[in-house]
Every structure is written in structure tokens, then in C-alpha cells.
């Protein structure tokens, strides 16, 4: 872990407008994450965890406050700049895996490369990562033919194929049984320890949170410890 601060938010707020109603999802979040950290974010449903990820990952702009990711000021970003941030700096992993159902595992990974404008073959270093994830023999199957654990491992491979500075995993084991959860959590820890991948992971499960270096608790749109 270095001392470089990769993520910093100050009084970060987000209000969703639903028709006439304003829904405050984040009510002043202050967070710092250093390069190489593995942080677990826990908290009850509706406490704003996913919203925090959407903002950090450039999927939606904040309403107010400061937010920096790898030196980029997200409050000043245009839509196009946030798209570029997603492409270069961020990898998402979701509870539902969210693989493209019509593409094979290999093509799901390849399309992330394609979107980033990089040819897949160029990256010789990625082979060991696939081996680490244990999916090399499943690459030519479509998601429907893969188990949940395998799908999530493919999703992780897709999330890191462009070497993002942060990996945002939103309840990555939420749909997995204990055995597969352990495998996925072990892999995340390996990525963090061996490759220095910075990881933020939302989870409900204390056992899962124990894999992280640090646990951040959220409640009602704020960090409470």
C-alpha cells in the first residue's frame, strides 16, 4: 500500500429527483482511500452504498461536495469525461454479475478491451490473471452455461482487463453460496495482494468484510465509522 490517496470525497451529497420528490441518498460523505487498499463498505439497505459507487465510478454526477478519483475532479466532469473515467480508471463488479448474455465469457472480457480501444492480444500479462481466476477452461461458454461463481469470476476479469485504478464491487458475493463466496473473496484478496489492485467492496456479510483491510460503515447516507 502506498501513501498516494486515490479517492477523496468531502461533504459528498447526492439527491435523486423522482418526479416531484427529492430522495437524498448521500448526505455528506467524507472518505479517503489510498492506492492498494482493500476497503469493505457495510451498512443497511438504502444507506447509499451503491450511490457512492455510482458517483465514484462516474455513472452519475454528485449533487454537491468534492470528489476526486486518481486526481480527477468528478464534480467538474462532463458526461463525456465521466465516460472516459469509467473506461480508464474504474472496473465495476455487480451482485448480478451483469455479463452480456449473448456473448461468450471471452467476448465479455474482449468487449471491455474493445470499448477501451485496445486490442486484446496485446496484453500478454492478462493470461496469468485468467489462470489466477481459474476460468481459462470456461472462456468459450456463454454466461447461461456458467455457474454463478464462474460468472462472477468472469465479471472480475472483465472489470480489471483494462487495469483500472479502482475496482468497485457491489455485493459481489450476494448471489453466491458460501463455497463460491470464499473463492471470489479469496480472488479479490489475491488481486489486491499480488497485483496491488485497489478494491472497494460493498457487502452485507461480516465474514466477507473480514477479507478487507478496513471496514467503512454507512447509515442514512453518511459514514458512521
Amino acid at each position, binding site marked *: 500500500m502506498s501513501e498516494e490517496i486515490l479517492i477523496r470525497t468531502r461533504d459528498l451529497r447526492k439527491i435523486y429527483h423522482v418526479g416531484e420528490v427529492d430522495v437524498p441518498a448521500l448526505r455528506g460523505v467524507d472518505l479517503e482511500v489510498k492506492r492498494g487498499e482493500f476497503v469493505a463498505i457495510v451498512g443497511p439497505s438504502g444507506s447509499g452504498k451503491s450511490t457512492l459507487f455510482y458517483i465514484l465510478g462516474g455513472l452519475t454526477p454528485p449533487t454537491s461536495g468534492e470528489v476526486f478519483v486518481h486526481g480527477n475532479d468528478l464534480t467538474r466532469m462532463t458526461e463525456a469525461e465521466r*465516460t472516459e473515467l469509467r473506461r480508464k480508471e474504474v472496473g465495476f463488479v455487480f451482485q448480478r454479475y451483469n455479463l452480456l*448474455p449473448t*456473448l461468450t465469457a471471452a467476448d465479455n472480457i474482449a468487449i471491455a478491451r474493445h470499448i477501451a480501444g485496445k486490442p486484446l492480444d496485446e496484453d500478454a500479462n492478462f493470461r496469468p490473471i485468467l489462470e489466477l481466476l481459474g476460468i481459462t477452461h470456461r472462456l468459450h461458454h456463454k454466461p447461461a452455461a456458467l455457474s454463478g461463481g464462474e460468472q462472477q469470476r468472469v465479471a472480475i476479469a472483465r472489470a480489471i482487463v483494462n487495469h483500472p485504478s479502482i475496482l468497485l464491487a457491489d455485493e459481489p458475493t450476494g448471489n453466491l453460496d458460501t463455497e463460491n463466496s470464499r473463492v471470489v473473496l479469496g480472488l479479490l484478496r489475491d488481486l489486491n495482494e499480488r497485483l496491488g489492485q485497489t478494491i472497494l467492496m460493498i457487502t452485507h456479510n461480516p465474514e466477507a468484510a473480514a477479507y478487507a483491510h478496513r471496514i467503512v460503515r454507512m447509515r442514512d447516507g453518511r459514514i458512521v465509522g
Partner: protein
Amino acid sequence: MRCPGLSTPVINKLVWENLKHRPVRSALAVLAIGVEVTMILTLVGLSRGTVEDMAQRARGVGADILVRAPGTSLIGLSSATMNQKLLGFLEQQPHVRAVAGTVVHPIGGVSSVTGLDLEEFNRVSGGFRYLAGRPFRHDDEVIVDAYYARQNNLRVGATVRLLNRDWRVCGIVEPGKLARIVIARDTLQNLVGATGKLSSIFVKLDDPANTDRVIASLKQQLPDYPIYSMEELTSLYSVQNVPGLKAFTGVVVSLAVVVGFLVVFLSMYTAVLERTREIGILKALGASPGYILNVVFRETALMALAGSAVGILMTFGTRWAVMTLIPASLVQKIVPEWWPIAAAIAVGGALAGALYPAWKAAGQDAIQALAYE
């Protein structure tokens, strides 16, 4: 990482798999575009084929020069207005070996009855080749060509109703020479109140090499009469010269494009709605709105190109149907020059139809799409 099969860009695989994912919808859209393309190509083929067939039949007479009545166009079906005495005048001209006057009376569509003096016509053309029967001897007899006979199930001895009268088929002749329905000239003249009048005169020369010289001399003596060499005929019998055909073609092409547009609109609109999550995933991976548009437009273009290929193939089917069912009324030609034009029209219409769905997809909110439920 090396993955076999990655030589095709993965975006094309996505497009292809998307189309395969909903085979019935994709096939219907392709078929609809195919129908659009066939409509265009069949109309073009029918216009060209029918008009060129007219020219070919006129040339099939074997004459060297055609004289028409003043103020008439070649294709418009006008009534007989030329004085029959002109035949004698033309016959006297140097180099003229034989002349034949015709009366043409329209009977609906592009069909017409032609009145001929067979002896005169034989001197110019060498006569019809009879596949069955014989020339007419009575003024209630009619000669038809094999196409007309096939289309109307006629045999020698059959009765056919034309111009409000019953006629007996006395002969069936090989197609390709001037007319499909032929009766005695004076009978037709009397029937339509054009006694002593002609529609066209075919002139046969002693040597085709004299054509230009004779035409020049005729034009001097008959300044008001349109006079053509047979060479000229092919270019004059052109789709451009058929009154109203251009406008009609425009209407049919527009209708075809509207159908293609609507089908693609609907197909891509449902596809985009159905793929809300997939589009959200692409956006989370950093896909720009341009990338999403690219996917939708590639899918549309692929459908339109497949539809164009289907449409071109179906044109052979419509040609077969026309040849089998109505060979005497219409002739359909396959016009390969129009394949890229029809395909371009189809692709253009389809892309226009995909515009709104694509725009909707590109502007979709990713986090709404990715929300768990």
C-alpha cells in the same frame, strides 16, 4: 490473452448474437426489408421489361424505318390518325421495297389489338411463324401469340371476347413480332371508326445501309411526321418516355421505404427496450453514446443488407410468377444495376428507422438499468 475467433471485432459478434437471440423478430424484419426491395426491383424490372419488350417486338418486324402520325408519341397509345394513302406515297420512294400499315387499338393496361393487312405485312416482315392454326380468312378471326394464348388458355378454335365482340382464334404464332393480338386491318378500322386511318407504317428498304439517306429524304417531304430508324427505337422505347410511370415509381418506392422504416423502427425499438440492462452494462464498461449508436446502427445495417439479398432473390420469384401467369400482359426483367440502388434505399430507410431507437438507447440512464430490481 489469446482467444481463438477474436479476429472478428467483438462488436460484430455482439451485433450478430443480438440478431440471433431473437430469430423470429430478426427474420421478420429481414423479410419486410426483402419485400421492400422486391417491390422496388419488381417495379423497375416490370417497367423496363415491358417497355423493352415493346421495342423488341417492333424491331422484330424486320423493317428499317417507322413512320408515325404527326403529334403522336411512340409509347402513348394513341388512336389511328394517319391517312392510309400515305402507304402508296411511301412505296414509290427510292430504295423502298415494301411498306406495311398498322392500326393499334388499346384494350386496357398495356395490351392492344393490332390490325394488319397480312399480305402487306408478310412482304415487310417475312410473316408470322405459326405454332398452330393458320392466318385469318374471315373478319371474325383473330391471331394471338403464344404468350397471350398461354395466359388466357386459348387454343385454335377457341372463342375470345375483344372489343365487345366474340372472335375465333384461327392461329397461334411465335411471340416477338410486333403484336400479341392481330385481326384484319379493315375490320379493326371499321370497328373503331378509323376507316382509312393508320397508327404506324413500317418501311422495308432494299438495303439497310440506305436507311439514313431515305429518312433524310422522307423528313424533307413529310416534315410533320415522326420518322425513326429501327436503331433509334430501342432508345426511344424507354421508361422515361412512358407518361406517368416516373411518378408511379416514385409512389411505390416511397411506400416501400415507409414500410421498411416502420418495421425497423418497431423492431429496433423493442430490441432497445428489451436490452436496457445490456446497454447499462456497456455504459458501465465505459461505452460512449457513440459506441451504443454504433452497435444499434450496425445491427440495423446488417438486417437491411440481409433483407436486400433476400429481396433480390425474391425478384427472381416475382419474375417467374409474371412469366408463368401473365406473360402476355407484362414482361419482367432482372435489372442488376438497380440492386445496389435498391439496397442503398433499404439501408437508408432502415437507418432512418433506427434513428430514434438508437438515440433512446444512447441516452439511457445506466444506473436505472443496472438497479437490482
